[in-house]
């Protein structure tokens, strides 16, 4: 069974149609990349998957792990195993990063019928994951994303992802605003999470991220539709030719 099955998905924002018939199937363990020009609907697709208010689905269906995703609220989708790494992670003043992460993890465990994690076990888990992402204890103590640099914010997203162990990771332009070193750290973090049964949807403008996170499939999204699907070599082709063909074709 496919992990994610999107069929003829139409969605609009403020009454304006953005997604105009998306078909996309992701099998367990696969990494798919979605590339496309600005305004093609990449971020809209990620918000629709995560269930954000205001992103209205007007047609089509999404099945996630056999369930009707469109029937689920945003928090239900999260505990069911969908994780969205934000392009612009949001600041939560005064909310400790560890507190936030612990509540999130316990929400996921509760949904899975597991007990809450104890304080020591949690600390150990987070420290281990934080280390590979070069996140210091001092950073963990800060309020969520407050006063973080662009790179720190992105690393923090991946840390959350690593702790929550989702089934589907949606990475929305995780490479934006990262220098080469930060890109490497983040990519390593993501690659460490690649596993059988865990799928990823990597949204990006640029091919360079895909040198680090090598996808099984690449899709070109332009003007609300997937215009072409290929292997990882498609990303290289796009790097050379740009998106002009697809924009014109639409």
């Amino acid at each position, binding site marked *: 069974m496919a992990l994610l099955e999107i069929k003829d998905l139409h969605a609009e924002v403020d009454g304006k149609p953005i997604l105009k018939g998306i078909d996309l199937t992701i099998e367990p363990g696969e990494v798919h990349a979605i590339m496309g020009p600005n305004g093609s609907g990449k971020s809209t697709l990620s918000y629709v998957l995560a269930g954000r208010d205001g992103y209205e689905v007007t047609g089509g269906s999404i099945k996630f792990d056999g369930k009707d995703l469109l029937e689920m609220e945003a928090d239900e989708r999260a505990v069911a195993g969908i994780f969205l790494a934000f392009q612009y992670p949001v*600041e939560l003043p005064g909310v400790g990063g560890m507190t936030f992460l612990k509540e*999130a993890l316990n929400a996921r465990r509760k949904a899975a019928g597991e007990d809450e994690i104890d304080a020591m076990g949690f600390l150990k888990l987070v420290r281990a994951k934080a280390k590979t992402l070069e996140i210091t204890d001092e950073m963990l103590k800060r309020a969520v994303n407050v006063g973080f640099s662009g790179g720190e914010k992105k690393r923090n997203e991946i840390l959350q992802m690593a702790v929550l162990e989702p089934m589907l990771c949606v990475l929305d332009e995780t490479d934006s605003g990262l220098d080469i070193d930060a890109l490497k750290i983040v990519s390593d973090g993501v690659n460490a999470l690649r596993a059988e049964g865990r799928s990823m949807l990597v949204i990006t403008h640029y091919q360079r991220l895909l040198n680090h996170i090598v996808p099984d499939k690449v899709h070109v999204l332009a003007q609300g539709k997937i215009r072409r699907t290929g292997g990882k070599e498609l990303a290289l082709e796009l790097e050379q030719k740009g998106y002009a063909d697809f924009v014109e074709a639409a």
Partner: protein
Amino acid sequence: MAATADTVRQVEDVTGGAYKYGFVTDIEADVAPKGLDESTIRFISAKKEEPEWLLEWRLKAFEQWKRMIEPEWAKVDYERIDYQDIHYYSAPKQKDGPKSLDEVDPELLATYAKLGIPLKEQELLAGVVAVDAVFDSVSVATTYKKELEKKGIVFCSISEAVREHPDLVKRYLGSVVPVADNYFACLNSAVFTDGSFVYIPKGVRCPMELSTYFRINAQNTGQFERTLIIADEGSYVSYLEGCTAPQRDENQLHAAVVELVTLDDAQIKYSTVQNWYPGDENGKGGIYNFVTKRGACRGKRSKISWTQVETGSAITWKYPSCILQGDDSVGEFYSVAITNNAQQADTGTKMIHLGKNTRSTIISKGISAGRADNTYRGLVRISKKAEGARNYTQCDSLLIGDKCGAHTVPYIESKNPTARIEHEATTSKISEDQLFYCLSRGLSAEQAVSLIVNGFCKEVMKELPMEFAVEAQKLIGISLEGSVG
């Protein structure tokens, strides 16, 4: 007993909803007839076997109160109170006052256990907190008394203090909040029934938190408690106050007076978690919390610190204040006021700088949701002689939804050119981005709001003693249930 089953059912009913403490305890009570005149005051005084001077004091207050007019300046809206439709005295029936906890009515102990306030000493956290429990009009139990007596600390009901320590009571009662200070304080002076009394002797650091737990149970009963805390030279005490009331359709009046006095180098830390029944979502019922709280830093280098988390009551109207008389004395006010549904709060503080180099800090966090109104009203006054006085004020308001209101009304009066006064204020909303970010991590909308609001209040919450902070955090979550759809 059938009534007990009823109570249990009521508890179950309300725990499903918002207010968890709305149950009624079925207990025989000794009640004064409704209404207020001289005979009511004589009745209360006689019930408490008070000395003549206190009766005179009460009667004088009553005479003055009759000539006063109920104030209307606060930004709160309510139906006028019929002062003749209230019982001014209600006490759980008991032949004599309980000599020890073993003599306290088990029904009462059960009530407090249900509220999470264990009164049996062996159940209390290994001597961390001593509790005085006030049920309707009287103090029903004070724990750890003996332990405290060894250090010379007096912690008892004010009725007992009147009998056992008349000199202290006579000297300080009404010395911070004068009898005719304001309408509600004056009413309280006439009819106060019980409350807590604390005296910390010279140089003693109170080894545990002292706590009073107030519970209004009887119907149509006003609660008029009076608290007096005196910290003698070089002493320290941390005092906690908590309160709940049953869920009833009619409004109930709570008009308390709290007076604090610190002498040279003494320090009082006074923390309140106020969770009176706030009324239902349409604004029916709930407590009118019209309270006068004031502390006098009489001594040099003394300090009074108020921390309050106000989540309950239909209307909250109070300004815990500091009179900074002693040179180098310090006043602090940390406040979280949450209003949801139809609740109204007009709260803040007064910092009156009289001594040299006196310092005050005000951190106020107001949160409004539903159709609620939340006002910060504060006064910083620097007198002519308060050379080098300093004040820092920060007022932050957080709005949830678009039908609530937040208002900030700071008054600043400085008569001394050397004073330094800072005022910062912000108003913000919980953003869609913040909510969605939390949801996308699997938190429910309620969890998200609770987390964000607790983050917003962090500077105040960290001032609360540990055991209280945990309770307060949960309370914030409960108070805001249903505020986002």
